[in-house]
C-alpha cells in the first residue's frame, strides 16, 4: 500500500512540470498585453510602459521568465497577481471554498440521484423507466453547460421566479466568513433566512454542474449492475433466502460500486472544468470565475498559479479515490 502511494506521488512531479509549462505557454500565446489591459482606454506613455514591463519581469527572454517562475513554484512561491498585487496563493484560497462547496454539492447531487437511478434501470432492464433514464442520461451528457444553465435560469429564475440568478447569498445578509463554505457560515451566523438564501442560491448551479456527472454515474451504475446481477454469487445470495433489496442493494451493489467509484473519481476533473463555465454563468465567486477573469486581464501569475493548484487538487483527489478503491475491493487490497 505504501509503495502504491509512493509510486502515485512520484508521478506528481513530472505532472507539475507539465502543467506549469502548458499554462505558461498558453496564456502567453493569447495575444494581448497585461499592462495595456490594466490601464484600459486612457493609454500609457511608452517609457512608463517599458518601466512597468521591467518591474514585472516581462521584458526578459521567455525562457528566463519560465525559469524564474518554475524556481519560484518549487519554493512554494506562485507569485503575485499583476492586477491586485496580492499573492496568488492567498487569492486562490479565499475563493477556493466557494468552488469546493459547489463541486461537493454537485457531486452529492449526481451520486444521490445517479446510483439509485442506475440500479433501478438495471433491475427493470428494458422497462419504460430504464429507457427514460438512459435517454435522459444521454441528453444530459450531451447538453452544453452554457445552454443548459441559461435554460434553467430562464425557467426557474425568469418565468417561475423560484431561484436567484447569481451569487452565493442575498445581499441582505452579511457576516464574516468562518469556513468559507456559505452553507455552514450562514448557518453559524444565526441570521434568520440566511441559510435558506444560501441554499436557494446553490440549487441551480448544483444542478447545472452536476448534470454531466449524474449522467455518467447513472450509466456506469446501470451497466455495472447489469453485469453483476448475472453473477453466480447473486444467485447464491438469493439461494440464502435474502430479501430482494438485500440481494440487489448489498450483494450486487457492493461489487458494482467498484467501477462506479473509479468513474466518480474521474468526474472530479470534469467537475472543475465544468465549474469554470457554471461559475461564469451564475457569477459564482469561485476559482473558475477567477481564472476566466484572470485570463481576460492577462494576469499571467494568477492563471498559472490557479491552474496549477487546481491540477494538484485533482491529482490528490484521484489518489484518494484510488485508495478508496483499494478499500472496497478486497482483491486489490491483498495484492502485493
Amino acid at each position: 500500500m505504501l509503495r502504491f502511494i509512493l509510486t502515485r506521488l512520484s508521478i506528481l512531479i513530472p505532472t507539475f512540470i507539465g502543467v506549469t509549462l502548458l499554462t505558461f505557454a498558453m496564456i502567453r500565446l493569447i495575444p494581448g498585453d497585461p499592462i495595456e489591459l490594466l490601464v484600459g482606454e486612457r493609454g500609457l506613455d511608452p517609457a512608463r510602459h517599458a518601466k512597468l514591463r521591467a518591474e514585472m519581469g516581462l521584458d526578459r527572454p521567455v525562457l528566463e521568465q519560465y525559469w524564474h517562475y518554475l524556481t519560484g513554484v518549487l519554493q512554494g512561491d506562485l507569485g503575485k497577481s499583476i492586477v491586485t498585487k496580492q499573492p496568488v496563493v492567498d487569492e486562490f484560497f479565499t475563493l477556493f471554498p466557494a468552488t469546493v462547496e459547489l463541486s461537493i454539492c454537485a457531486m452529492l447531487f449526481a451520486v444521490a440521484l445517479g446510483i439509485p437511478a442506475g440500479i433501478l434501470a438495471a433491475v427493470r432492464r428494458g422497462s419504460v423507466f430504464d429507457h427514460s433514464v438512459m435517454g435522459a442520461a444521454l441528453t444530459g451528457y450531451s447538453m452544453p453547460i452554457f445552454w443548459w444553465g441559461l435554460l434553467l435560469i430562464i425557467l426557474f429564475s425568469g418565468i417561475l421566479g423560484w431561484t436567484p440568478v447569481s451569487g452565493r447569498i442575498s445581499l441582505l445578509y452579511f457576516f464574516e466568513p468562518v469556513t468559507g463554505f456559505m452553507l455552514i457560515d450562514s448557518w453559524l451566523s444565526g441570521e434568520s433566512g440566511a441559510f435558506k438564501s444560501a441554499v436557494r442560491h446553490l440549487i441551480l448551479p448544483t444542478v447545472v454542474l452536476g448534470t454531466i456527472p449524474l449522467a455518467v454515474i447513472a450509466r456506469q451504475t446501470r451497466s455495472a449492475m447489469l453485469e453483476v446481477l448475472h453473477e453466480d454469487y447473486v444467485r447464491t445470495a438469493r439461494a440464502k433466502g435474502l430479501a430482494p433489496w438485500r440481494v440487489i442493494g448489498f450483494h450486487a451493489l457492493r461489487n458494482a460500486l467498484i467501477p462506479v467509484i473509479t468513474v466518480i473519481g474521474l468526474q472530479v476533473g470534469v467537475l472543475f472544468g465544468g465549474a469554470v463555465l457554471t461559475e461564469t454563468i451564475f457569477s459564482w465567486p469561485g476559482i473558475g470565475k477567477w481564472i476566466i477573469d484572470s485570463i481576460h486581464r492577462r494576469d499571467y501569475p494568477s492563471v498559472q498559479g490557479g491552474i496549477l493548484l487546481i491540477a494538484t487538487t485533482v491529482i490528490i483527489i484521484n489518489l484518494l479515490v484510488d485508495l478508496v478503491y483499494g478499500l472496497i475491493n478486497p482483491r486489490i487490497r491483498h495484492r502485493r
Partner: protein
Amino acid sequence: MPLLEIDNLSVTFGGLRAVDGLDLSIDEGEVLGIVGESGSGKSVAMLAVMGLIAFPGVVRANAVRFNGRELTGLNKRERRNLTGKDIAMIFQEPMTSLNPCFTVGFQITETLKVHEGGTRNTRRERALELLSQVGIPDPERRLNSFPHQLSGGMNQRVMIAIAIACRPKLLIADEPTTALDVTIQAQILQLLLGLQREYGMALVLITHDMGVVAETAQRVSVMYAGQLVEERAAGALFTHPRHPYTHALLDALPERGRDRPRLPTIPGVVPGLYDRPSGCLFNPRCASAQADCTERVPPIESGNRGRVRCWHPLREDAVGA
C-alpha cells in the same frame, strides 16, 4: 409421506420448455441422484424447487409439497423463509459462487442472521463450528478470509457450510464437484455424504457422472430434454437399465469400456427449442427406436421396476452389466 413431492412441474423460458411435466419425490434422509446430459433441465428443475427461477422463466406445477406444505400457494416472503433454511442448494462453480467482497465469516453468519437471528456471538460460534465440520483447518483465521484467498475446494466447503448452516431438511447439490480437481472431488463427495448422514438431510445430487451416482445415490432419476425418462433404485438401474437412454449413458462409462477399443457415444444432442421431435423426445438418437416411437409421446409407466418413459423398454435379460 415424502419430504418433497413434485407433481407435473414445468419451467418455460419463452417457447423453450426447459422442464416438461416432471414428477419427482424424495424421502427424508434419502440420497437421490439426478443424471442427464447438459441441457436436460436438471438445474432448472431444482432452481424451481428453490424458488429461484427469475423472469422470463415461468414455473408451473400441479403441486410442489415440501414437508407437508404446499409451496405453490406461498407468497414471496413465506417462500424466502424456507429457501436457504429448510431447502438449501450448492452450485457448480465454487470460485464464483461466493461474493468476492465479503469475508467467509460474514457470508456464513448472514444466513444464520436472516433465518435464526441470535446474537453476534452465537452466530460466530456456529460459523466456527460449521467451518470445522466442513473440514476447513484453522477456522478462526478463515473466518476473516476472502474467497479469493481460498482454493476452489475450500470455497466449495464454505458453500457447503453456508448451505447446512440452518440444518436444512433438503440439500440440493448441483454438480458440486465438476469444477474441482479429481483428488478434491472425492473428498467433497465424502464430506457431503458424511454431513447428509450426520444431519439426516435428504440430498439431491445432480451430476453428469454416472460413476458418482453409482457410489452415492440410493435412487436415481434420469432426465432427458426436460422430462423424466427413468427412475429406479440405484443398484437395479445400473445392472438393468430399462430406458435405451439410460443404457447409452451407462455404456459411455469408461469403466465399462475397458475391453472395448473405443467408448461408445450417443450420437446427436439434446433437442433444443426448434428441433423437438414428434413422439418420444429421444427417438432420433435411440438405438432401438421403432416406427411408433415417432408418433406418440410415451407415458410414464410405473411398476415395481421403477418408472420408465418408453414404448419399448429394454428387457432385463437383454443387457448384461
